[in-house]
């Protein structure tokens, strides 16, 4: 290792460095200059500064796109990682700006700092193909998220959620580490490509089976796939709205991307097959089981929910099931489909949480009954919420529909003998028909039910309305013209040669 490598390292990691420096600056400014000012100003200044930092990082990535692979995949830069990093940064900017109107905490500097640190963790996470760096950046992300979930110190629910999240998260980290250590033992390397090369063999080593299962459990926890989803409903319900939105959107994007990489790069040659006759051992049957369980459990339990946050949590489990299909497909096309799906999904979820935050502010709770008659009091927010919910339900011409369509197409394409994964796709489509029921229940409250009491005024901040509307328009445009983003994704996937 020579000195030039270190300058290169610094250059490659410059976007992350920018984020971390911004985080420190925000913290310092908030502590030193703004301590005594009202919340509103402190939040505005902190989120604006942080957004500027994110924008600077985006500019750096876009304007100086580097192509590199340092230390055997420890730090990687290629069009694909750039694309995902930019997507993460854009989502973070939206999360930050949307939190500008909240007042759940006095520790504004710390809150923004944690979001930025988590973002830096995610950026490292997507820019690596090395087990150690994956684990470290995953922990950086997770630890920040645990604290973010607990950030509303006035609410016992927030504490409870964070504790649950932390306990389950710790356990899953242990599983993941266990799996990773087995992989290291089997292959004598922490680089995914080296591991893949040494795993080739006619029969499956029992240790490898354990490694596959524990790795899948560890990563399955991050994406809230059943049966490792227990934290999700509580965290979605208890965490402050901006934290929940962040956990539900950005962290999903990063986790799915790394899940795909670990499986598709690290376990090449031990896929097995999930097609019904003659289930061959490998990692695809494991994921197929998780996917099927998630789709069933998520959609069926969501029907019974009365709180919109919990409903979104179960719908997130269901969506994790759909997206797992892309990992099972593990072709370049299915990676493109996964990225399109998870990015548009994150936009919808983020927007939905922003609307929830406003409704909670005004009516005190996210119970479905509190959304009654929203369309008459906040037409813009209601319209946007309808767009987000319908996109989640997969109604064309919104982004969620094309995401599902493309995902399902790529999965059926992925198997050489067409239609052997058809059963998963049929299950997914059948379950998405079920999902329309609970999504429509939400919209029924918003549009059909009469407002509970007309006397109370409904305050919807203009800035939030604008942001939410931007997200809704993005969901519509990406759905009507998927090519806008799809061509970047496809080009990036091709260029990265995954």
């Amino acid at each position: 290792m020579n000195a030039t490598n270190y300058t290169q390292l610094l250059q490659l990691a410059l976007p992350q460095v920018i984020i971390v420096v911004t985080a420190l600056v925000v913290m310092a400014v908030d502590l030193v200059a703004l301590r005594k000012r009202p919340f509103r100003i402190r939040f505005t200044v902190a989120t604006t500064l942080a957004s500027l930092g994110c924008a600077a990082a985006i500019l750096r990535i876009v304007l100086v796109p580097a192509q590199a692979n340092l230390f055997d995949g420890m730090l990687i830069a290629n069009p694909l990682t750039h694309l995902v990093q930019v997507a993460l940064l854009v989502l973070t900017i939206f999360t930050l700006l949307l939190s500008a109107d909240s007042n759940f905490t006095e520790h504004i500097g710390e809150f923004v700092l944690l979001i930025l640190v988590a973002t830096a963790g995610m950026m490292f996470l997507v820019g690596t193909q090395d087990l150690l760096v994956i684990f470290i950046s995953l922990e950086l992300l997770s630890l920040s998220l645990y604290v973010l979930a607990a950030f509303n110190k006035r609410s016992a629910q927030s504490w409870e959620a964070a504790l649950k999240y932390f306990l389950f998260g710790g356990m899953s980290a242990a599983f993941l580490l266990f799996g990773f250590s087995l992989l290291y033992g089997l292959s004598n390397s922490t680089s995914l490509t080296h591991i893949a090369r040494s795993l080739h063999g006619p029969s499956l080593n029992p240790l490898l089976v354990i490694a596959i299962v524990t790795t899948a459990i560890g990563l399955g926890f991050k994406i809230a796939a059943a049966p490792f989803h227990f934290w999700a409903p509580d965290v979605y319900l208890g965490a402050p709205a901006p934290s929940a939105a962040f956990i539900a959107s950005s962290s999903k994007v990063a986790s799915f991307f790394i899940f795909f990489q670990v499986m598709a790069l690290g376990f090449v040659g031990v896929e097995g097959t999930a097609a019904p006759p003659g289930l061959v051992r490998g990692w695809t049957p494991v994921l197929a089981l998780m996917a099927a369980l998630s789709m069933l459990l998520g959609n069926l339990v969501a029907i019974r929910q009365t709180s919109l946050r919990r409903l979104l949590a179960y719908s997130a489990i269901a969506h994790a099931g759909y997206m797992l299909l892309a990992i099972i497909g593990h072709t370049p096309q299915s990676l493109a489909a996964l990225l399109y799906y998870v990015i548009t999904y994150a936009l919808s979820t983020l927007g939905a949480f922003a609307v929830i935050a406003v409704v909670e502010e005004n009516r005190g709770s996210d119970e479905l009954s509190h959304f009654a008659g929203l369309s008459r009091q906040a037409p813009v927010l209601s319209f946007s919420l309808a767009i987000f919910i319908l996109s989640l339900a997969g109604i064309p011409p919104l982004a969620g529909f094309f995401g599902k369509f493309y995902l399902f197409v790529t999965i059926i394409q992925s198997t050489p003998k067409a239609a052997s994964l058809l059963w998963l796709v049929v299950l997914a489509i059948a379950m998405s028909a079920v999902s329309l029921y609970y999504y429509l229940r939400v919209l029924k409250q918003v549009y059909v039910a009469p407002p509970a009491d007309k006397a109370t005024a409904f305050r919807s901040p203009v800035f939030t309305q604008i942001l939410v509307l931007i997200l809704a328009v993005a969901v519509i445009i990406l759905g009507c013209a998927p090519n806008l983003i799809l061509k970047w994704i496809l080009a990036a996937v091709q260029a990265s040669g995954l």
Partner: protein
Amino acid sequence: MLAWTIYISFIGAAALLLLPRGSTTLARILALLTAIAGFAIALAAFLHHPTGEMQVITRVPWIPSLGIEYHLAADGISLTLALLTGIIAITGILFSWNIEERTKEFFAFYLLLIGAVYGVFLSYDLFVLFVFYEIVIIPKYFLIAIWGSTRREYGAMKLAIYSFVGSAMVLIGLIAAYVVAGSRTTALADLAHYPFSPHFQMLAFPLVFVGFAILAGLWPFHTWAPTGHVAAPTAASMLLAGVVMKLGAYGCLRVAMVLFPLGLGAWSHHVLGLGSWRDVFALLAVIGIIYGASVALVQNDFKFVIGYSSVSHMGFILLGLMTLNQIGIAGAVMQMVSHGLLAGLLFAVVGRMVYARTHTREFYLLGPMNLNKAIPFAAVTFVLAGMAAMGLPGFSGFVAELMILIGTWHAYPLLALLVGLGIVLGVVYVWRAMQKAFFAESRTAERPPHHPLPPITLPERIGAIILISASVLVGIYPQMLLNIILPALNSPLFEGLRKGSWQ
């Protein structure tokens, strides 16, 4: 130009939402103008296009990486149904002139629905068709759930779920067909000429056919129809029966039968005397005809009578498709038009003229009101519409049912007899409804009612006259439509169907 039927409806819907609060009259007029513009465009295309062959409207790449094109085209069948949509759209607005609550939103959802319906009829790429087909679901849910009556939330949700399940089945079939054909294109013409294996077609055909037929009211998947129709506000029932159910039938013909013609072929063995999917669906269609008519015969709710009559009439359409001969299929398209006009009219009489005034649809309450004296225009309209629906000569129903009967006689002589029974039952239930609702023996004949019913308004009169004259026009000069429907059926698109199992 024809593509503007879609855009103008969507633009109208968006413009309505931007109107200031409380501008009720403006909203109505804007909606009406939009619908008229859509109809005028469809009519102009109809007049300029006397041959009925396929004519491309727009064809631009949409998602090149998947080979999906934004491809709109129209042949005689599409044009006929677009014209029907225009008429129903206009009259539906005329019959909802009395909507006072959230008027803007009502018409916005209404126009969104209309635009998507035009879109389905004009799509020539399966992906585009499916997109428009699914857009239809959401506005019809809200139209029923917000402005409906009896058990509206139940009816609306049932309708939405049935539609969505149907379209999920279609989606599975389409994705499978797309991938099997090499994932290069979703163009209908290209996929129709792709030689899918007979085994694949045998599996895919029933899936896609039933997926569409759920929306066309195929027995036993029809149960959304009566509840949905009854719950819906007048304009929405008119749209549902008039055009939305036609979407299902259109999809059966345009997608399921065109893509998978071999799926209609004979099985290797007989099950319960049925030798092919064609036999199965023909039988289900006939059961639908007779079942719908019999249930309509015993209803006490006026609107349920019409709701079940729709199931019965839609059975004719599906039966016409399953005859697989030219006269039968052309008859099915004619019946789509005829039923669209007449069901629209019947729902208008029941929902707007009678229910909106009397606030009841129960026959035992309507009878004593002496409606033939109180609102004679409604009585006359219902008599005319009922005669047309029975299939009396001179109206559109006669031509359509006759063609379907002849086609059935060629294909399934035995079923043709049962259909005859269905037609007789049709006469009986219309007669019974007419008698009970309008001409019941009044025990309190001399006493004037406490509140005289408001007279029939001008928009209602215009709407009724438009629908009746359209039905009469089609009835006395069916050649007008057949001239463009028959060439469309002889086009290369239906070649597989003609070669495969056409008789």
